[in-house]
């Protein structure tokens, strides 16, 4: 049994189908990234797994338990980082982290966690005075204080500067190496590429692609495009054998090939083509009942 198992999950609100049919599993110590446009059903799926909402049909198991019936002992094994919060403004960072440690049977050391998220210098600051990125790091600290076996991260790095995001990635990599199972929801493709063992692209409430970041949408097998300049104009050729083509070009030009580029589809291009091929879905679902 895997820590997270989801089969044919479905959830509709009054007039919107938020989750139509979602299945995936996350193995122990694995990080799965849910990618998709706003309103695609990522947050609804996550909140069903966190026990906040009930699915209409399908099955969900987290640590072998149906989240709709999970009790205190089950909750003690989860860590939840919700989308951007602004509660706890009148407490300091340390007060909040210490307080939340008290809910769990085997919490991490609060000062270690504050250091791990890089908030030592702000430990005595009121949470209401933190910047957006610092506030988000506090949310992550509160999510991991209980030493969770399964960690839910819903857009954890919104508002981070690039350096803070790198540090956060290192932190998550550390948790993974300790065996924490992670379900990550993100808008940042480079974040999914960096952290996730596998990626599930969700559009219109369905999983439209489910693979490792490198193989997503068969992009590892996609043809490379070789571009160069010849006789004053840009030339390009799609090929399965870019190395052979470049060797030919090198012979033809007798050395350097002017303006040489080899291009393979990036994760972003693959992702955009995946959600676009799903019927340009995301515009009309956006703003739905998330």
């Amino acid at each position: 049994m895997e820590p997270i198992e989801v089969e044919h999950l479905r959830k509709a609100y009054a007039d919107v189908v938020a989750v139509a049919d979602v299945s995936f599993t996350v193995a122990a110590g694995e990080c799965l990234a849910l990618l998709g446009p706003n309103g695609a059903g990522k947050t609804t799926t996550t909140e069903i797994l966190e026990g906040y909402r009930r699915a209409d049909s399908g099955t969900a198991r987290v640590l072998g338990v149906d989240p709709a019936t999970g009790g205190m002992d089950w909750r003690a094994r989860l860590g939840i980082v919700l989308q951007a919060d602004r509660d706890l403004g009148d407490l300091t960072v340390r007060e909040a982290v210490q307080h939340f440690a008290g809910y769990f049977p085997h919490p991490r050391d609060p000062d270690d966690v504050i250091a791990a998220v890089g908030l030592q210098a702000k430990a005595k600051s009121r949470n209401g005075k933190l910047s957006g990125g610092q506030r988000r790091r506090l949310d992550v600290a509160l999510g991991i204080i209980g030493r969770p076996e399964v960690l839910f991260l819903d857009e954890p790095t919104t508002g981070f500067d690039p350096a803070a995001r790198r540090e956060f990635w290192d932190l998550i990599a550390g948790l993974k190496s300790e065996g924490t199972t992670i379900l990550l929801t993100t808008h940042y493709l480079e974040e999914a590429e960096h952290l996730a063992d596998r990626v599930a692209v969700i559009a219109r409430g369905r999983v439209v692609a489910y693979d490792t970041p490198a193989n997503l949408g068969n992009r590892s097998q996609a043809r490379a495009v070789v571009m160069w300049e010849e006789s004053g104009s840009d030339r390009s050729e799609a090929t399965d054998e870019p190395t052979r083509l470049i060797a030919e070009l090198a012979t033809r030009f007798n050395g350097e090939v002017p303006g040489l580029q080899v291009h393979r589809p990036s994760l972003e291009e693959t992702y955009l083509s995946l959600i676009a091929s799903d019927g340009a879905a995301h515009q009309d679902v956006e703003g739905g009942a998330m």
Partner: protein
Amino acid sequence: MNRTLAIGRRRIGIELLQFFRDRESAIFNFMLPMILLIIFGSVFANQQIGFEDVTFSQYFLAGMIASGILYTSFQNLAIAIPMERDDSTLKRLAGLPMPKASYFIGKAGMVFVAYVAQVIILLIVGILFFGIDLPSGGFKWFTFAWVSILGLASCTLLGIAFSVVPKQGKGASAIVAPIVLVLQFTSGVFFVFTELPSWMQTFASFFPLRWLTQAMRFVFLPDGAQVIEAGGEWQLGLAALVLVTWTVIGFVLALTVFRWSPRGEK
């Protein structure tokens, strides 16, 4: 059960810390009776109210202690909980291994400690500046205790239940504060109760505050002052009946209507 109480105790601590650090709540729910007592007590310091040497400021002190029950419990919770529902406090707590009852223990404990602190300060101000005497005799202290506890219980539960009424945390105080103010004006806090129009007295008699003020006057005014009460009596039995009834109503409502998530979310 032990765990529920242990976490409930932690919640009381964190609730109190947030209650006193939030400037709006500290002024609006905690400081207001002291401020009003000093202003009204000074303006009407020597005004007699129809019985011997009872001054309006003494009458008003009893009303402020009764109002303090309403401020620290009903007004405090009916404003704070909608804000917690909006800013994800409740959602975060619902995702923790926290027994739901611990949250309500935290709220009730915060209300109790805030009220006790408020009464102590009001009494110090009353004794130093307005010639108030501490209750004389065990029965008055006993009455003070049960009236406080029944008042806090009913108004805490009603505040928890009323927290579903404001659509948004931001607008909650605009809905709750006028209700508290109207009850104060009609329940004998700012005016002598028996001098109010009779329809107003009847209206106020349906709600806890009128009975809280009257019982507090029994505790803090001389015994003979009952001649200026309705029917010339303190009506403590009726006060107990009304407060117990509201406690039961509040308990049922709080159990049935309380929501952890904002409207439109299930």
